[in-house]
């Protein structure tokens, strides 16, 4: 491998961008395909699209012979909107399950180091935080503040950027009003149907801790049951 190609691949990985390194197994020739590239005219376009979703590396047969695809997709991330009681349970659970976790809440009474020791806590508005750390298809968003002023923006961003999971706390009535606001804001009805609400698996969760389990279950289900997801 060419060192400059290796460094380009590493830079993409560091920036949480998906990339595929294509290696011709017969002659060792290599090229890099980025997730954001327009590869529709590439003979391997379908294969690339499938593997960007699954994140799985593997051999493929091409007209020119055998090629190996080294697929690099970012680690799954969970962004929790709201430093509430549910989040205090959800943060450690999600970290144990292998997620990079961030909590965003502009209400400084909630977003304290004491309530969230050692975790990635941003005591600012989602509008500000997401400027520096934008959402992407390898990120799940769970909005649990109950406050539209805080929840609405990141939820709409999550839908627009194709987050693999978008969940929102609130009753069916609250969610109905939310859908009306999002429709008025011009969001595609098909996107709105992606919101998991009421949030979490239907396991009868009652306490904040149990709701955290239900939310994490939904997030993992969305991650692992995506089309072509890794087994």
């Amino acid at each position, binding site marked *: 491998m060419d060192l400059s190609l290796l460094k380009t691949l590493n830079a993409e990985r560091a920036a949480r961008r998906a990339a595929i390194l294509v*290696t011709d197994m017969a002659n060792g020739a290599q090229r890099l395909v980025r997730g954001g590239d327009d590869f529709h005219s590439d003979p391997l376009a379908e294969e690339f699209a499938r593997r960007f979703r699954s994140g799985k590396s*593997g051999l493929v047969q091409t007209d020119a012979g055998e090629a190996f695809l080294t697929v690099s997709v970012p680690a799954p991330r969970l962004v929790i909107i709201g430093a509430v009681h549910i989040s205090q349970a959800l943060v450690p659970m999600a970290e144990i399950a292998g997620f990079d976790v961030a909590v965003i809440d502009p209400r400084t009474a909630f977003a304290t180091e004491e309530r969230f020791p050692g975790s990635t806590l941003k005591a600012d508005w989602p509008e500000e935080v997401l400027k520096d750390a934008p959402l992407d298809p390898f990120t799940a968003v769970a909005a649990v503040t109950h406050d539209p002023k805080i929840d609405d923006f990141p939820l709409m961003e999550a839908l627009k950027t194709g987050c693999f999971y978008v969940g929102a706390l609130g009753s069916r009535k609250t969610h109905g009003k939310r859908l009306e606001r999002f429709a008025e804001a011009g969001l595609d009805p098909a996107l709105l149907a992606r919101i998991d609400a009421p949030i979490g698996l239907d396991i009868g969760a009652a306490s904040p801790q149990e709701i955290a389990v239900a939310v994490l279950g939904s997030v993992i289900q969305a991650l692992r049951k995506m089309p072509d997801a890794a087994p």
Partner: protein
Amino acid sequence: MTATDTLPDVLETAASWRDSGRSVALATVVETWGSAPRPVGSHLVIDQDGNFEGSVSGGCVEGAVVSEAMDVIETGTPTTLDFGVADETAWEVGLSCGGRIRVYVEPVV
């Protein structure tokens, strides 16, 4: 921070070793059959002195890959290695788990 973050990143290691003037080869698991310990896409980076980071198996075949990688560094030519209990070399290097793996080894130049 996830558990895997605490381990050195193999591809970052490969680049930093090259930057510090070491000769480097990269080994990648390209195919597995049966129960293989490391998934397709796993990497092992090796330098000219046989230092290595990462894994392509559960430690069963790393030794053989490292010595082949030192040849690859010498010649500059990529190669593909097959390991498995079905191999005649099974008594020397093979996968105790009964699986088979194919490993691509290339120089980083």
